């Protein structure tokens, strides 16, 4: 008895208790809902059997029907545009800003801190604001573009099927910019200064210093940022109801919003679950990249 107690207060047992608590927490709050969701995607779910676990088995029918929808291809394409457009935009602009704020100029740190405002704003608020900016007839962006002479007819960002997915992507790039910049800034600060000094002495110009020192040294940070970006973008939901509601004609609909529409507008919870399980596969892949790219970080 005493030995067990000793082990709990000072030894293996203590570690096990800590790990066990975290595991129990994860299983209860992430694992079980996940299993419930996967189960639901293989069942016939009726709005009135939501509360029960045992429901008629549907096999792959839900998946088949979801894929057979005429909008499936369009939504897949939009999800690709949204995810990769957002990630590329966030990382490229975020990286540029991070490099910019590495320069020594007055208030660099303060201004960088102010960028975080976008990150702490709730998605619905950001969506509402971008909704006004991107409005067609009386939108802010159109007014600016017109006064600069870039466009002469109104651009219907929210209602033109060719523009709508980009409208949401632009808003999402803005929303995730600060987070990307911050992570990349941390990575940049970890690069030893003397590497640059040595390269400069050897006559390397700015482009060479960037491509042969900054980029290679940032590889694991970039991998992590891209993987996190993929996950955050796939779970970005608030902007869609606030800006386009997936329309017009599904031209800005993406998988995560589609899953919500199945479940909470059409009350077909099984199909909603099927869509989210398909998305899960992408997220698992992204998580694998994330774990792989951070494998060099200190482990206990």
């Amino acid at each position, binding site marked *: 008895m005493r030995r067990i107690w000793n082990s709990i207060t000072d030894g293996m047992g203590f570690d096990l208790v800590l790990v066990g608590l975290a595991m129990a927490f994860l299983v209860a709050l992430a694992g079980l809902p996940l299993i419930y969701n996967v189960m639901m995607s293989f069942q016939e779910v009726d*709005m*009135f*059997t*939501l*509360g029960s676990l045992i429901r008629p088995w549907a096999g792959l029918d839900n998946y088949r029907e979801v894929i057979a929808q*005429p*909008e499936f291809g369009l939504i897949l394409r939009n999800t690709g545009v949204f995810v990769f457009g957002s990630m590329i935009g966030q990382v490229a602009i975020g990286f540029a800003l991070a490099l910019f704020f590495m320069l020594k100029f007055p208030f660099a740190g303060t201004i960088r801190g102010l960028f975080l405002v976008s990150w702490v704003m709730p998605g619905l608020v950001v969506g509402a604001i971008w909704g006004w900016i991107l*409005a*067609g*007839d009386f939108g802010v962006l159109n007014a600016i573009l017109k006064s600069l002479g870039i466009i002469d007819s*109104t651009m*219907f960002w*929210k*209602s*033109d*099927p060719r523009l709508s997915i980009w409208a949401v992507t632009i808003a999402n790039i803005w929303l995730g910019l600060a987070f990307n910049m911050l992570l990349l800034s941390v990575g940049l600060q970890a690069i030893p200064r003397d590497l640059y000094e040595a390269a400069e002495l050897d006559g390397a110009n700015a482009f060479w210093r960037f491509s042969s020192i900054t980029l290679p040294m940032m590889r694991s940070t970039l991998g992590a940022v891209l993987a996190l970006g993929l996950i955050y973008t796939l779970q970005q939901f608030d902007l869609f109801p606030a800006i*386009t*509601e*997936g*329309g*017009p*004609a*599904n*031209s800005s609909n993406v998988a995560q919003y589609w899953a919500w529409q199945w479940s*909470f*507008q*059409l*009350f*077909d919870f099984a199909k909603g679950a099927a869509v989210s399980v398909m998305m899960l596969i992408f997220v698992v892949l992204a998580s694998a990249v994330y774990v792989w790219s951070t494998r060099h970080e200190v482990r206990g």
Partner: protein
Amino acid sequence: MSYTAKTLVSAMALAAMTGGAMAQDDPVTLTVWSIDGDDRPGPSDTFSAEFNEQRDDIQIDYRIVAFDDIVNETLRAYATGNAPDIVSFDNPDFALFTSRGAMLDITDMIEESDVINVENYFEGPLNSVTWDGRIYGIPKYTDTIGVFYNKDMFEEAGIDGPPQTWAEFEADAEALTDPANNVYGAVFSARAGEEGTFQFLPLIQMSGGSYEDVNTQGAQEALAMMKRMIDNGWASQDVLSLGQWDATGTFNSGNAAMAISGPWEIDRMVDDADFEWGVTLLPVFEEGDERSSALGGFNLGIMSTTEHPEEAFEVLEYFASQDDRLFPEFGNLPARSDIELPETGTPEKDEALAVFQEQLQYAQPRGPHPEWQRISKAIYDAMQSALTGQAEPEAALAQAQTTIDGIVN
């Protein structure tokens, strides 16, 4: 023992007695869920508070649920055994619950009731609470849509009166469009959602179709017309994403000459519009054609899980007995033919009301069908894909018809 002390003691004794009496006879508590009272006082929240003041034996626990959440909330509550006793749904959502036995059959109770009389209700609203010939609720209030038009702009353009056919509607919209002053000829809601179906289904119906039969010649023409209006700039492309309230907002500010919307706009229009305006019935395809319009409005019903059906019915009776206050106090139209609406003193409002009351005679319910949400999606998806040019009107409607056939058959 002084006089005051004696009074105090007897007062306490009295309090104890009445307290005891009340404890023996606890009031029955009923939960009522509705969207009323969210942004301004509505009928259900006001009547519930009054009911609570008048009655000691029944008390209402009233809860406001947002419009977008009420179906979901109720489904979840029903699935977990926490359903409210009385709930109020938008009329096309009602069949989802009646068809699954989630609502209480009140046909017999209504027959014995002195307050609620089936004959008094308009046919459309009554149909939406009926399932298999039995009645599962009562219409709370109703509404429909018509065409608001800017009389000043019509006069300036030399157009005699508001459009009576869709061809006139299109021609007027073209004539009234004035890009230099940011004026569109017309505004409506072709949004991907229930509002889109609400505005488009009447056109299908007046061309001889129904929600089960959407691919009519008239529906194809209507989509082609709407697309022409958007492509030519007679209507903003934003009609694809605007809801009715926001769309009519552009009419009120003088940026559109006509707007398709309903009586819920009247009060705001009286305040906001600084021009002469009027309302006309929804146009038809050919003069003399059968008219149609959308039927909006909410219903009230008792959920089948209630433990106090009689008391819940008493609450419904009280709500129904106050129907004559719906229009003067809340701007809602009663779904009943036996209630005279009083004059408001604002001539534009009274004229508009008369038009909407006439329009109500042609209003047809959406459904009732337990899978209305999926049927509705097929309809607004077809409308949107035709208006964005993704598909020709005929192909879009044929696709919708295939989807609907799969649901109704």
